């Protein structure tokens, strides 16, 4: 139980200024690095979902969840192990047009099911979505071509277990 492992945390919050600050300060005060962070609207109107990835022990994870949920503007927080989630990351890569017809790149695109989403005279942009390791590998393959820009998103994850935020909110109103 007390071995460090990767957890994906889903935090449902009010969509208010300063919530990110409250969340990050809880990790900061316990000296925990946030490996990845994504903030987006959730399935419920006006409620945001934060998706964070941390590498800590489960004991500590539980304490952090308690301290997150204690925050007034946080509705619920959940943590999940790798096998409890379906997750993806997205990367965008900008390359010079000289490689547009490069066969090796074309092959990589097919294998990775990556898309060319913009093509201009000065550059073209590839989009790919997948697991962290897929994108890491893709990045390595393309790096020799002198990437003009590379950017990747944080992890977003759907959890296999139900989280029941609507139930919680409805219960509170009654």
């Amino acid at each position: 139980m007390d071995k460090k492992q990767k957890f994906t945390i889903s935090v449902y919050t009010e969509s208010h200024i300063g919530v990110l600050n409250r969340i990050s300060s809880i990790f900061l005060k316990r000296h925990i690095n946030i490996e990845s962070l994504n903030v987006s609207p959730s399935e419920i109107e006006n409620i945001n979902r934060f998706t964070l990835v941390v590498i800590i022990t489960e004991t500590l994870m539980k304490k952090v969840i308690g301290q997150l949920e204690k925050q007034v503007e946080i509705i619920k927080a959940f943590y999940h192990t790798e096998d409890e989630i379906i997750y993806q990351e997205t990367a965008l890569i900008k390359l010079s047009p000289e490689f547009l017809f490069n066969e090796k790149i074309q092959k990589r695109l097919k294998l990775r099911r990556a898309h060319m989403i913009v093509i201009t005279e000065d550059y073209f942009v590839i989009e790919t979505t997948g697991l962290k390791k897929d994108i890491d590998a893709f990045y390595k393959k393309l790096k020799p071509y002198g990437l003009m820009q590379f950017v990747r998103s944080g992890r977003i994850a759907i959890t296999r277990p139900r989280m029941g935020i609507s139930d919680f909110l409805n219960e509170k109103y009654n």
Partner: protein
Amino acid sequence: MGTLNNKITITGSEAVLKCLLEEDVNLAFGYPGGAIMPIYDELYKYREQLHHILTRHEQGAIHAAQGFARVTGNTGVVFATSGPGATNLVTGIADAQIDSTPLVCITGQVGSNLLGSDAFQETDIITISTPVTKWNYQVTKASEIPEAIAKAFYIAKSGRPGPVLIDITKDAQFEEFDFSYKKCTSVRSYRPIPKIDLEKIKEASVIINNAKKPFIIFGQGVILGTAEEEFKQFIKKTDIPSASTALGLSAIETNHPLNVGMVGMHGNYAPNVLTNECDVLIAIGMRFDDRVTGDLNRYAKQAKIIHFEIDPAEVDKNVKTDIAVIGNVKETLSQIMPFLNKGEHKNWLEEFQKLYKKECDVIINEQLNPTKEGLTMGEVINLINKETKGEAVIVSDVGQNQMFAWRYSNFKRTRSNITSGGLGTMGFGLPAAIGAKTGAPEREVVAILGDGGLQMTIQELGTILQTKAAVKIVVLNNSFLGMVRQWQELFFDKRYASTVMVNPDFVKIAEGYGIAAEKVSNRDNLSDAVKRMIASKESYFLEVTIEKEDNVFPMVSSGSSVSDIRLN
């Protein structure tokens, strides 16, 4: 006062005052400045309804509000301006957060058009205060004021209380809007009182009923939940020896037959030692602070642990519990009563009494009735007990003076122990005593301070001069930062690095502020001096020269187990 249905057009700053009156606030502490002047202008206009106490420093204002809140149970209100005014509140906010004290702090802020521009007296107090507030909010439009303040009072006081900060830009204070007020009764993302699980209560009752050597540690949760009566019923029925945390002191009277003293680093011998011998440890409204538990790996490992607690985040945070009974202890203690058998633990209680006698022989008797020449802090507290008959509110500062105040004060009434527990804020005592006296003018309020802590907020003598708050101030002067010096003696080979204090003539200073003052250095004069102080109708300043290198014992040294508590 209820809800104001008729809308009226007023400024944001007048709205602040109206909101406070709707929340039945008639007293606030603070310090004016540029960015909060419109609100101070309204404080002037509303001065008949809302009394404002001007302290000499914003830190003084917030500690006074804490003292007020702790003695009354009501939410303390503080005003400060932007920038340094706001940052000067931070220590008090952090103190209130860790000690669960309900406060609403209202700070002025630069105009919203200037936000983020490094304007004069601009600081980002929202970011600064985020980790130490229960909730905070920046208002940039007057129309947000009623809802923000209503929420602030609801959040500060509900569930586990704490400090809230509302930062109001200057333009929002000037802006006019249609005012109406509605008290806040719920926030959808916030569940202050968790649902009680009756199954857990039943499970806990079975363990308690079968316990041979049960032991209770109670904390401030009993006081915050106004559960003193329920708690007394609970221990009366179960006959379980009960020890207090520092903040739990005064929840039941010191002389209650089942009160076996205080746990913790400088707590009593018996409850610390027997923590590691009980078979069931029942924690009620306390949070297993490290100063209570010592080494967690050697803390009550033999015992089943039941934790009655309102804040789910405290469960299993430090000590792994067997049964967590989540909820306001007032409710959970009432609900468990029908499931409890009448208990009898006479022999077990005698074990506490035996160890108490040992502590008396080695420490307490000599502290209270010293045979050596130098004056002890314990004998001063003992004389105060005698003169106040245990009816006083004892406000302590931080350090040795505080340990003696906790250990030897005789409390008869709840909410009588006001102290900076979790944060250990030196300088808390004097302003907190002013706030306590203002909140409970009918009660005797005695501040127990050291020469170090006094000088951290000594300027608040000016607040006493101006408000005539009849606070009794006792300075236990050993010309050292005594607690640090004690650690230097015990753990740093007596290298007294920066703990020697060269002090001014405190009596002259107090007299300069118009406060009757005297200094006692001799045992023969002490008793009469304490009598004079308590008899005084006005504030009184008593400096007592204490034995310089006296130590607080017993002591659970840092990293030790509670049962390895040293008697000397």
